[in-house]
């Protein structure tokens, strides 16, 4: 059964201290060619029946993202493309 994935990221103009902390730590790992790192949330939703994208969009808009500071996208993903399928 496909799964709905909602990606929520801070708007580009909002400072992301976590992403910055990671970016600042990279040179210590010998990584010098990263321009920027942004950290957001990935939310995987399994529906009991058919996955419902509109429903998911509504949930995202009301609850999962805060429109003042965040943008989101909603998409369907086959279960074998999910993170646990290939780790």
């Amino acid at each position, binding site marked *: 059964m496909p799964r709905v994935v909602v990606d929520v990221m*801070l708007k580009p103009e*909002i*400072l992301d*201290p976590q992403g910055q902390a990671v970016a600042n730590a990279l040179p210590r790992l010998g990584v010098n060619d990263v321009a920027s790192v942004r950290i957001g949330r990935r939310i995987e939703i399994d529906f009991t029946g058919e996955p419902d994208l509109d429903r998911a969009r509504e949930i995202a808009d009301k609850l999962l993202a*805060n429109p*003042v*500071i965040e943008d989101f996208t909603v998409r369907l993903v086959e279960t074998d493309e999910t993170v646990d399928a290939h780790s």
Partner: protein
Amino acid sequence: MTARVGVVTFPGSLDDGDAARAVRIAGAEPVRLWHGDPQLYGVDAVVLPGGFSYGDYLRCGAIARFAPVMETIVDAARGGMPLLGICNGFQILCEAHLLPGALTRNQHLHFRNRDQILRVESVDTAWTNAFQPGQEVLIPVKNGEGCYVADPATLDQLEAEGRVVARYLGGNPNGSQRDIGAITNQAGNVVGIMPHPEHAVEALTGPSLDGLGFFTSVLKHLVGAPA
């Protein structure tokens, strides 16, 4: 008649008992309200206390906003009822769009608890009329997501309308834009504050008694308010 001030308990509220104690010390009657019960039991004002409502797992305050009691509170606040959101309460007020902007992860990424100096900049609100303009107060701050952000236009508007209620002095504890520690709505009845005035109401347990002013203010406001 003593004023009745409601204090809401959400699952995960932590400073609800302290807020009720502060209300009592200020001379009002605290009334405990429950997140799942939309009734306000005729309270004259409401405090949304600090804590981690619903674990604050998604975003602070995001889930609490949908509690049944919030619907009634939002309506009442739009009608002029004084409403104070402390810390998690401030986050809930922003999530509920009663106040503009949002509270995000502290810039240094740590939870931080310290005694913080604030400058009270607006004394025209229901919760700060007992202070002098520009008065400096010492109040504990303790949060992990207390960094206030809003777009520049909103920030300019807040400043222009005198709605920045308090600013951090002597070091910004969380990276808030323009050192903002507390703001109010246009009507001045709804105030969100990141530091914890309810922890500065007793000499024995707090760094000062400065927090008491927020609670005595609302009593003053209620007496003066048209019935």
